[in-house]
């Protein structure tokens, strides 16, 4: 009898802890629980999501999608990249699909950027080249009008990740 009670208390406490985790996970960017849930999501994605995706795309026609794999930016967060583009004011010069207020016509539009061959006309359009360009454009193209915006490498990775989501321009 006492053991049943202990089980009941244990289950109730576990339930309460889970509820607290879900509740705190729902609040943006707060607490260990949110990080844990995010981590679990990544693990689950790695374990099942990619396998499912791989089964669907790559293995089905016998051809993995090498093009997207080559544009996978290490530690790049595309959502944060889109927010950073608002922060750095990219939209004053570029049309960027999906970025608030980005409708400038000073520089080239960035729709379909993933399909371009070159960055700024000088660097090959692959993650390392794009990240280096974003950090210091005049270093690679001395006559460019695009200023050095003081972007650090982490921010450049996130913005590069976002630019590679723009396909088919």
């Amino acid at each position, binding site marked *: 009898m006492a053991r049943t009670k202990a089980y009941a208390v244990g289950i109730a406490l576990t339930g309460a802890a889970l509820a607290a985790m879900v509740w705190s996970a729902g609040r943006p960017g707060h607490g260990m629980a949110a990080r844990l849930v995010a981590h679990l999501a990544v693990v689950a994605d790695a374990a099942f999501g990619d396998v499912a995706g791989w089964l669907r795309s790559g293995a089905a026609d016998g051809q993995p999608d090498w093009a997207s794999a080559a544009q996978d930016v290490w530690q790049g967060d595309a959502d944060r990249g889109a927010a950073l583009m608002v922060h750095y004011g990219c939209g004053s*010069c570029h049309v960027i699909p999906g970025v608030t207020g980005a409708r400038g016509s000073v520089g080239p539009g960035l729709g379909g950027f993933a399909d371009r061959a070159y960055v700024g006309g000088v660097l090959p359009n692959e993650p390392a080249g794009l990240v280096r360009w974003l950090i210091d454009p005049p270093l690679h193209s001395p006559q*460019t*009008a695009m200023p050095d915006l003081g972007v650090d490498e982490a921010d450049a990775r996130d913005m590069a990740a976002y630019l590679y989501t723009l396909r088919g321009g």
Partner: protein
Amino acid sequence: MERDIPQSALDIYGAQSALEPAGFGAAIVFDLTFAMTVAFGTVFVGVMLLVWLAWRRDRPARHWWVWSGGIVLPVVSILVLMVASTAALVAMTRSDDTALVVDVTGHQFWWDLVYDPDGLAVRDANEMVLPAGRPVTLRLQSADVIHSFWVPSLSGKMDMIPGRVNTLTLTATEPGRYRGQCAEFCGLSHPRMAFEVVVLEPAAFDRWLIRTAGEARDAARPELLRGRQVFIDYGCAACHAVRGVATGARLGPDLTRVGARGSLGAGMWRMNQGNLAGWIADVGDMKPGAKMPSYNHLSGPDLRAVSAWLVSLK
């Protein structure tokens, strides 16, 4: 203390809201609105109850009800409202001889500011800095068409009419960053004629005013020196003043401390070199109808240099 305030009002939700008063006038308006809403809500619910009662009974209403509900109640409530709103108006528009004076002139589509016009006469633009808890008298004028000055978080609005000076005395109570907006249609870019208001503690405000009265910061790097030269060579100084570099021009906003502002283009875009370069190269696209021409004939390095120099003016 000053660092606690976000860099731009564009990053603050509710920076332009009459529901979050941070000034004397806005607080009065908010209280009056709240009291009126509650009072008239109560009256409305009461009347609906009486209608319901009247429908349930077959007897006609007594004369007493008609007199009290139809005449006495409206007369009394409207009288109370009139006295309260008149008192609020008197309190809000009371002038104060000891107040700091700021001349505010509306232009299509930006704001010219002169602090203490009869003394220090510090000219600035598009970002108003105010001392918390100290009354400030704004002398509102217009250089072209009718504009209207409105910072919902601080006070009521006041029209700016060509050929006359309207005064508005306001007292900001909470240090912070707020946003104002032109509230009278004034042309093509009227919706893009906003500004930021920074409320500082009085001591910090005094320091700010003294510092801003001085000349612009020196160009400390070769690129900045080149930017300053581009500013002079391309005739920017015909419209824009930068104290210590080119003074006197008043057709466009004073740029002596442009890089220190929270935003660019009169409260519209975050102040950074990216937006500033895009602005210089294509004003017509970012702010249709603005008088500044687009400087897309600058070479790339010149555009970078002049935008870097302007952002460094803090």
